[in-house]
């Protein structure tokens, strides 16, 4: 299981602050395609795996905590 955290606008799109994926492994790219197809999330959305920003080719595995990071606006 891969845990997906949703914040801000993303949380409103998915309707939840946390999703669970059954996948054993998944590239960031494929993950974003899946999120796009299911919830209309922008495929350019940033992704963090275990609290570090990830690249499209990076692989997430069961047990990881993943976050969808829309453009930030702190400060």
């Amino acid at each position, binding site marked *: 299981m891969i845990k997906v*955290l949703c*914040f*801000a606008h993303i949380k409103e799109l998915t309707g939840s602050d946390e999703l669970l994926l059954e996948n054993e492994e998944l590239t960031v790219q494929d993950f974003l395609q899946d999120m796009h197809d299911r919830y209309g999330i922008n495929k350019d959305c940033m992704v963090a795996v275990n609290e570090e920003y990830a690249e499209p080719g990076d692989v997430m595995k069961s047990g990881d905590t993943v976050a969808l*990071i*829309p*453009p930030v*606006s*702190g*400060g």
Partner: protein
Amino acid sequence: MKDTLYRVTDQPISVEDVMAKVIRPEAGAVTNFIGTVREFTKGKRTLYLKYEAYPSMAEKQLARIGKEIQEKWPEARTAITHRIGRLDISEIAVVIAVSTPHRKDAYAANEYAIERIKQIVPIWKKEHYENGEEWIGDQLETVSYPSGKPEGEEFHD
């Protein structure tokens, strides 16, 4: 001490407390940046803001900014606290304190910190206006995600 230099909190921020973390005998200059909630943005009136964060990652990213500063300005010391939750007009959203032996670096490093916060720290601002609300999408305020659903009752929280 080290691990409290970079904080995300839902409590009001004391500027003096953040500044106190970087004052030291080697420093002759301290700069603070204080981001406050502005009432008008491009003529549009804000009633209040809500900030949401991915707190554990946000603190890691703040610490990363501190590390970047120390690489660029080795004599600088940095402390940053960002508030989340509901903030009213003029309340403090973020305090950045940087101390250096000489003043030029204290300005440059501090400005670097706020620019980086607006790039890499997972914190999001939702503006609450008189007739609606929206997530603010990036620093330049060129991207926004209107929810299209005014929440009138929240205005009197």
